[in-house]
């Protein structure tokens, strides 16, 4: 057993346990946690069966297997960033809507209060 043989699977497990604990303590949404669970699981799987990487690299026709890993992780990271940007822009829009409707409501409440106090 070399260092990598123990550390890498362990790292995968730690990722999964950490994500689970976050979800369990209600600090992370279940929907978003699926992706990170899968990442942890993939690390675990690849570190136990390094041959998988060779198979995938042969399959896509890349001679140097580790570069497949870099390729996949880069694509995944880009995907994650894009998704986050999307969410961020949506949140931003929602926040603006919320601020506006709050201001309008405040205005209506104030108008009602003024009307009530003038009636008394």
């Amino acid at each position, binding site marked *: 057993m070399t260092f990598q043989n123990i550390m890498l699977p362990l790292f995968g497990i730690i990722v999964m346990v950490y994500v689970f604990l976050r979800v369990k303590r*209600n600090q992370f949404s*279940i*929907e978003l*946690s*699926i992706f990170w669970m899968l990442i942890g699981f993939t690390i675990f799987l690849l570190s136990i069966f390094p041959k998988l990487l060779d198979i995938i690299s042969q399959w896509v026709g890349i001679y140097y297997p580790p570069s497949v890993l870099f390729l996949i992780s880069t694509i995944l990271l880009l995907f994650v960033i894009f998704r986050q940007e999307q969410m961020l822009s949506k949140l931003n*829009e*929602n926040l603006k*809507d919320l601020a506006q*409707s709050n201001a309008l409501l405040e205005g209506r409440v104030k108008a009602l209060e003024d009307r009530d106090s003038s009636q008394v």
Partner: protein
Amino acid sequence: MIIPVFNEVENLSTVVDELQRDLPDFDILVINDGSTDETAALLKTMDYIHTLSLPFNVGYSLALKTGFKYANQNHYDYIIQFDGDGQHIASEALKLTEHILATKADIVIGSRFMEASDYPHSPIRRLGTGIFKSLIRFFCRQSIHDPTSGFQVLSRRVVQLYADMPYFPQFPDANLIVDMILSGYKVSEVPVKMRQRLSGKGMHENIYSSFYYMMLILYNILIILVKHLFKTKGESR
């Protein structure tokens, strides 16, 4: 009675009229989940119902949760979850409320599949319902025939719990039922009739979204099971 709606201008007046006619003693709360059609204008003309309007579309589950918060604030003892698309039949709600009053259950589900019915169900949905059913039977030792039904009556303590639950699930279905049964709440089921939705499309109509929905619920149930496994081992919060 809580009805979350999103773009239901065609069905809403039929649904509300039916509720008014068959259940005159119930308070009706319609939650407009940021509809982009004339739903909001239509709701303004119905002054005999309570309405809440969300400033943008937040999704079914959060709209429902808003209703729970409202029920909590106004101290309702029981609430009925009802769909705004005409699937649920108003007079059937009485069966659920009678049952919950008689048995003091926490959650009563209106079930389409307890008795042989001609309710049309797509093969994928049928498969999903079958899987959820057997999972619940295996892990909770209880038979729930229709775990994805949105026609439910909830008691006050369930409403309180849901209203304050952080990260309330995106699809509050089978996963939530598993969680509630394992947490010791009393869940039971009453057979009801349902219709096809009157017009328009439902939430899980295409194959991709129903597959995503299935996976999400299964994953959700898995997390909940592991969570409860740890609890029984004495590691409680």
